[in-house]
């Protein structure tokens, strides 16, 4: 009987097999398979379920203290070079396996309700299974190259899922943007991997780390080059984990169906970058410069995300920017040399953010009953309000999520965020200050979301406001105004059990999982890094812990209080108090720091212009010379032969045109 670790390869293969089977079915027997909704869903859910069971078995084994397992085979070879692929199971991987499968499973159950009326139900489940498979493959990769393979596959699945509703222009653009921005990161990652391989002759994490140090001490690689290579590799995680300035794809990716936003853009895919940085700790730790860059990038990101989240009116976008911000915290932890803290925040965040996103999906689903299937309306908080009356499960779990992310003890977010802030306080006090301030902003914007959505009075039937929003989005109010209004419900309803159950299930870890990582006895730390956990527990003192923890709780409470005053009690009119007084800041935030504009002007338009001018050169200069040569040969015997066949007249005409074009071109230039 093989042990679970030896069977770990099955964890990504099971969902992959299911997805391939259904995918082939969709291509060959489209109608039949599309009609078999429930059986297909059941098949794929059981595939992921099987992977989940196996993952938990692997995790249990690791908890019991099993040694890491690694299995490799020769994948490609040429000359003296061999490339090995395989899988590796260790504590870090086991934690991620359990996390990814759990959330994937819950999201799939949820999707059964959320996507029930969608034409692409079967396709959606196939993509979900494919995505889970790629992410699980990434987690058990034994070397950088295999990570790169799955890294790209995860990116591809994200492309497919964001562009799921392909008849929407927004989705099409967002999908492409997500893929291309990620490719920009992969560009650095690929070059970094190549460079590290050149320097160390290995793709393995530990080997690269030790051999790189060896190469530096023997003088064959300078420290500057090594730092550069590390930073190139870091470009990959920057794109995938939405770090500034490559975060621009994540908020746009909210165009995908909401379960995807929960799975990919909150809990798992964006975690890949953080996970890779954790895996690369043996490489990064010896370079304080690299650590500093990671920490600074993380800090910029956490502040940027939170600041933009302050003004968002779209529920999902607000959550998206909060994800960006929280990913910044994780990177900050990595930069402080505290991978355990970063991974711990990744785990707690995955639970409560998945819950929040699924909750927002539940809200949007309910809002669609009232305002119709128009994302501009269904996701705008100006049309929500008072939903708590009709949606008790969603509102309660959302409230728990808000408490958790704001860092109110003893919920999950408190422990993990506090650990990061504690580490930052020790390593980079200045960055700690930014993180500390952002904790207050986090509490504010989360409770702003909560109050606007669930408290107050319901504004969904205000057709004037609807028309105004549609016009603002450039979609024209008239046609939609006619279509809606009469056929829709008066107020939203709570979602069905498929959607409510995952919310309730996720609420449990959102409250409790933090207790696994209390600083004086961190079970999480003991699993990932027993030595460090023991050290931390030994040096733990309430005298150090309480002031810092107290400070972060206080600033969170301040943030919540402001939100309560402004959005629940309406005692504070932020629009006049802040927005009117500092219009520049407000505009700056509402335009998301103008990053999309800069990106568009500089890169999108720039590359288009460059491409067009290269094409001009190609068709006028290069081809012009060719046609000119053709004209010259027409004078010779070779050309006469073509004249006789009668085909050359046309050719001569073209050549003539080519010469004219050339003349004109030179005329324009000179």
């Amino acid at each position: 009987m093989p042990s679970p670790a030896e069977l770990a390869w099955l964890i990504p293969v099971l969902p992959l097999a299911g997805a391939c089977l259904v995918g082939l079915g969709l291509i060959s027997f489209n109608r039949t398979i599309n009609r078999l909704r429930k059986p297909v869903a059941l098949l794929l859910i059981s595939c992921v379920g099987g992977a989940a069971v196996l993952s938990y078995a692997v995790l249990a084994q690791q908890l019991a203290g099993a040694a890491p397992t690694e299995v490799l085979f020769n994948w490609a070879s040429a000359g003296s070079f061999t490339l090995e692929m395989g899988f590796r199971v260790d504590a870090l991987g086991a934690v991620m396996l359990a996390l990814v499968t759990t959330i994937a499973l819950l999201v799939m159950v949820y999707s059964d309700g959320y996507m029930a009326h969608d034409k692409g139900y079967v396709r959606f489940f196939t993509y979900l299974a494919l995505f889970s498979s790629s992410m699980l493959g990434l987690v058990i990769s034994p070397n950088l190259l295999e990570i790169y393979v799955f890294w790209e596959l995860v990116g591809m699945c994200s492309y497919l899922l964001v562009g799921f509703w392909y008849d929407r222009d927004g989705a099409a653009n967002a999908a492409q943007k997500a893929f291309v921005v990620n490719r920009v990161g992969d560009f650095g990652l690929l070059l970094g991997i190549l460079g590290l391989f050149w320097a160390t002759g290995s793709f393995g994490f530990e080997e690269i780390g030790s051999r790189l140090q060896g190469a530096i001490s023997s003088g064959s690689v300078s420290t500057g080059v090594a730092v550069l290579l590390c930073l190139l590799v870091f470009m990959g995680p920057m794109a995938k984990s939405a770090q500034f300035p490559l975060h621009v794809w994540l908020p746009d990716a909210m165009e995908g169906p909401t379960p995807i936003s929960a799975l990919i853009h909150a809990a798992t895919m964006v975690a890949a970058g953080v996970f890779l940085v954790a895996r690369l700790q043996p490489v990064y730790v010896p370079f304080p410069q690299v650590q500093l860059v990671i920490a600074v990038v993380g800090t910029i990101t956490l502040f940027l995300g939170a600041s933009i989240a302050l003004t968002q009116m779209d529920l999902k976008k607000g959550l998206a920017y909060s994800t960006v911000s929280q990913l910044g915290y994780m990177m900050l932890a990595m930069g402080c040399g505290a991978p355990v803290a970063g991974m711990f925040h990744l785990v707690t965040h995955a639970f409560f953010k998945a819950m929040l996103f699924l909750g927002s999906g539940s809200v949007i689903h309910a809002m669609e009953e009232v305002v119709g299937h128009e994302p501009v309306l269904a996701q705008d908080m100006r049309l929500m309000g008072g939903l708590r009356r009709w949606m008790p499960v969603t509102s309660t779990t959302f409230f728990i999520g808000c408490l958790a992310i704001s860092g109110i003890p003893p919920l999950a977010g408190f422990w993990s965020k506090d650990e990061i802030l504690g580490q930052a306080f020790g390593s980079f006090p200045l960055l700690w200050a930014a993180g500390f301030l952002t904790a207050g902003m986090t509490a504010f914007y989360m409770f702003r979301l909560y109050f606007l959505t669930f408290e107050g009075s319901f504004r969904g039937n205000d057709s004037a406001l609807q028309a105004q929003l549609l016009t603002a989005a450039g979609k024209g109010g008239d046609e939609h105004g006619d279509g809606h209004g009469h056929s829709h419900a008066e107020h939203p309803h709570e979602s069905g059990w498929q959607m409510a159950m995952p919310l309730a299930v996720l609420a449990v870890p959102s409250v409790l999982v933090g207790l696994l990582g209390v600083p004086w006895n961190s079970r999480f730390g003991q699993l990932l890094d027993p030595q460090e956990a023991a050290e931390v527990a030994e040096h733990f003192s309430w005298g150090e812990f309480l002031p810092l923890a107290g400070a972060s709780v206080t600033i969170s409470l301040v943030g919540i209080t402001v939100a309560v005053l402004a959005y629940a009690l309406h005692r504070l009119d932020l629009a006049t108090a802040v927005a009117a007084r500092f219009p520049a800041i407000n505009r700056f935030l509402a335009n998301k720091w103008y990053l999309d504009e800069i990106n568009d002007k500089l890169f999108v338009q720039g590359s288009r212009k460059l491409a067009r001018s290269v094409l001009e050169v190609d068709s006028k200069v290069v081809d012009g010379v060719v046609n000119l040569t053709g004209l010259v040969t027409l004078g010779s015997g070779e050309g006469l032969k073509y004249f006789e066949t009668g085909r050359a007249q046309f050719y001569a005409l073209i050549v003539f045109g080519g010469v004219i074009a050339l003349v004109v071109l030179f005329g324009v230039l000179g």
Partner: protein
Amino acid sequence: MPLDFAATLAAATAQASSTAFPWLSAAILFPIAAALCIPFVPDKGDGKQVRWFALGVALITFLLTVGGYLNGYDPSNPNLQLVEKVSWLPDLGLAWSVGADGLSMPLILLTSFITALAVLAAWPVSFKPRLFYFLLLAMDGGQIAVFAVQDMLLFFLAWELELLPVYLLLAIWGGKKRQYAATKFILYTAGSSLFILLAGLAMAFYGGHVSFDYTELMAKDFPAKFQLLAYAGLLIAFGVKLPIVPLHTWLPDAHGEATAPVHMLLAGILLKMGGYALLRFNCQILPDAHAVFAPLLVVLGVVNIIYAALTSFAQRNLKRKIAYSSISHMGFVLIGIGSFSALGSSGAMLQMVSHGLIGASLFFLVGATYDRTHTLQLDEMGGVGQRMRKMFALWTVCSLASLALPGMSGFVSELMVFVGFATDDAYTLPFRVAVDGLAAIGVILTPIYLLSMLREIFYGQEKAELVAHTQLVDAEPREIYIIGCLLVPIIGIGLYPRLMTDTYRATMEQLVARDERAMKALNGPVGSSALIRQAPLRAPGLG
């Protein structure tokens, strides 16, 4: 006259095949002989009978090549195998000499495979079907001959004979500008063939005795200047075929006018003739010159990748877009050939096979889409995905394969070139960094133009005008089957590259070792070429 030619050859091979079955000769001559029988196939003129005949012939040819691979080919042997040699015109030193080593075998298999699928892709052809299938089958034999012959004169004949079917296929079945495209194609390639002939004759007549045989040419000790001249001539000739920027402008025109099956052959096989010939002649027979020219190949490869990717991005015509993407992908072949590492050269070979499969699939899809939309202008398409969902899925898979998604063959070949070049001691570190860095820009540009293309064809709202004037029926089983057949090796190689690389590994290692020796000799004490190539620098950390 062609009949005579075939008969003579058939008789000649019959003599030689006293011991073993002549797999390669059969694979070359059978489709040509069968093509000559096409006039006698009963057919009403609509092509409905003759297409079955052609498909059968193409399949049998494919089986013949597979049979040769399984029965007479040992991948661990780096030397020539499946050799058949018959003296043909002794006065001219001409011999019917075929054989296969690691450079030939993968491409022979690719040729017969793609041609069989191209025949299936040509199913709806109803205009002069007999002639069409005749040309397809003649091309099949001719192309296998290009890869299998071991005699330079024979190679030249096969190379030239190849032009005629392509010219006719373009000129008769092409689009609106077909005359221009066909003429341009023939002028380009015929002009460049002149260089092959000159270089070939010079090489054959050099030294004591006259011989066109590859092995004997390899044994000749050409002086450096001679090698450089011959190399330059051959580079221009093969550079047109590959194509290398700026010798590429025939390709977008030819591709822009060709029909889908011809497309598949052009992209799938014809371009590979250039890469194959570069390996066979420039690297194998002229190693000293290769040592000098290799950096140029690498630089041209980088130019190909970036230049063609940018042009492809700006193209509004679908066929031309994919045509330029082909040019971009062939850049990796050049970099791989120019690297003095077994890994990089293997990557170049794999990229040829991989692009043959992926390019054929994309061009087939272009044709199938054009049949429905009747336009190739991206501005006139949009939202097509709602009515053509299976087509959308096939397009997506093939585009992802083309942008080198892991799990598919393109990723492995590009990765091998990247790693091979990065760890290549022959070049200085800054040069390697620059080349890998610039080539990696292609990694960003490729998805930009391919995904933009998908977005403009399939995503978004349906274009009312397009829907009103066309019948957007979804992919039919035949089309799915063709793409399915192409995807099997694409994904197979992507998952386990040794399926393909082991076929040619031994030969490639031998070839690279030879080139590397020449390169090291060049970098010896006296080096007038020190300006071109810098002294080798050992990579640290690599024993």
